[in-house]
């Protein structure tokens, strides 16, 4: 019955990840909201705005790139900043804190949940984009490389920031009302629903502080023709800058999470 060896942090984290996914799949609302809502948004915007915004580039293509970037914010930041306060209210966090489970395992489990739901979301958006909105899958290996680091870094910083932001909502019930507007406003400012360069300059400047604007721009560098770079604010894709800004937000998110995370309400 008892072999007295300490359970492995990674293995426990992996197990928690499986449990988190199982829980996620059993909550129909969360599946619909996280996975299907972005797809519905894409369908609506893509059908309404069909203009060509540059030679060979339609607004739907521009929009789909932004929605893929948003997918990372939804599955990481939005999901965690809503779910963690709920778990705190329910007492599940305090209960975990009273067990020998390493703290890191909890966060590994959450990261696995985010990664898996993000992969599903992005795959659905890509599929919908290619089938219905003329999205071109890149043929260039370099673009796939960019896509890969954008997804990984974007998901990681979104996860860390979601955990960091989870101390902001005062209660689990109110979390959604606090977090969702932040995300939606950020989407408006960052050029998901509108063409970024057509936004008022002050909006552009605010957006440039946050990661979503850079994720959108990075995704456009993957899915839009290279010629479109000249239409961006800096007349280039600025992928190097995007990389640095995402890393900075990841580090900031990690530091804030470690310093401020709360296991119980009081």
């Amino acid at each position, binding site marked *: *019955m*008892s*072999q*007295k*060896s*300490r*359970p492995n942090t990674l*293995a*426990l984290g992996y*197990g*928690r990840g499986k*449990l988190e996914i*199982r*829980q996620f799949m*059993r*909550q129909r609302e969360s599946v619909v909201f996280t996975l299907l809502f972005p797809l519905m948004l894409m369908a609506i915007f893509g059908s309404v705005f069909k203009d060509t915004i540059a030679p060979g580039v339609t607004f739907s293509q521009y929009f789909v790139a932004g929605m893929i970037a948003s997918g990372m914010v939804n599955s990481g930041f939005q999901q965690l900043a809503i779910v963690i306060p*709920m*778990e705190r209210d*329910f*007492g*599940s966090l*305090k*209960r975990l*804190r*009273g*067990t*020998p*489970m*390493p703290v890191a395992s909890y966060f590994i489990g959450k990261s696995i949940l985010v990664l898996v739901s993000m992969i599903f979301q992005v795959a659905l958006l890509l599929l919908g984009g290619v089938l219905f909105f003329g999205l071109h899958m890149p043929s260039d290996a370099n673009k796939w490389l960019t896509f890969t680091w954008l997804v990984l870094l974007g998901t990681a910083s979104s996860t860390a920031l979601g955990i960091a932001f989870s101390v902001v909502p005062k209660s689990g019930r109110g979390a959604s009302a606090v977090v969702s507007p932040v995300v939606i406003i950020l989407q408006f400012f960052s050029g998901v629903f509108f063409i970024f360069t057509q936004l008022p300059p002050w909006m552009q400047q605010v957006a440039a502080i946050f990661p979503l604007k850079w994720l959108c721009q990075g995704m456009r560098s993957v899915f839009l023709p290279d010629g479109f770079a000249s239409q961006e604010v800096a007349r280039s894709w600025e992928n190097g800058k995007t990389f640095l800004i995402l890393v900075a937000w990841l580090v900031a998110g990690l530091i804030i999470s470690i310093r401020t995370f709360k296991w*119980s309400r009081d």
Partner: protein
Amino acid sequence: MSIIEVRNLRKSYGTNFAVDGVDLTIEAGEIFALLGPNGAGKTTTVEILEGFRNRDSGDVSVLGIDPQVRGDSARDFRDRIGIVLQATSDAGDLKVSETVGYFSHYYAGAKDPDEVIDAVGLGEKKNELIRSLSGGQRRRLDVALGIIGNPELLFLDEPTTGFDPEARRAFWGLIRSLRDAGTTILLTTHYLDEAEALADRVAVINKGKIIEVSTPTALGGRATSQARVIWEEDGVMREELTNEPTSVVSRLAREFDGEIPKLLVSRPTLEDIYLEMVGLTNGAES
């Protein structure tokens, strides 16, 4: 052997001493109940013992470990204790067996999840989602998660709040069986009858200080307190407080020459004693 040793424990929030010089010794294998009104320092004391809060001063040893340790030593500490918090309400999208099974992985020497589920009486609910459980069944699940690691010491916080009387009796049986299997239990409760039914010893805490530690039957001089003899005479209820209830009753038996109408002999309940103790300390300071 003492499982818990507390000397001169203090903890303040601002200028308010929540715990003001508490001494406690809890022995291996006993059920020890900590009683006290809300805000008496009960929760703060227990949370310091569980390692959830840091103390300001004093010596605390739980299973020979300072619960304030961090890192790997904290994992070793939590490996040996079990905590049943006040009613939790997890989202409940997992099955009973999944949850207990997964918690068993956290501990180095966990018990068999199926055996634990059976022991708390949830065998038939094993494959149900937690959200479908009744309040009492959920509480049993909480206990299952508290004991899955085969703890030497179990913290039980308000375990039967909201139970119907039958469920409480059954739950008490479960707690006694844990004690009989060698687990030391620190119980906090608002129900005095619960403390009386379960506890080997009780401590009353008020205003951050321990007022008395005793057995439930001897607390506050209960065992030696005056008995109350009540009977009916000429259509009115009469009562007499006495140190010798037996002689009062035999006197009455002679007077009535047989059955004494509506006879009742009682001693103060644990609740009477407790309320008197808590009331006195409150009165003394106000």
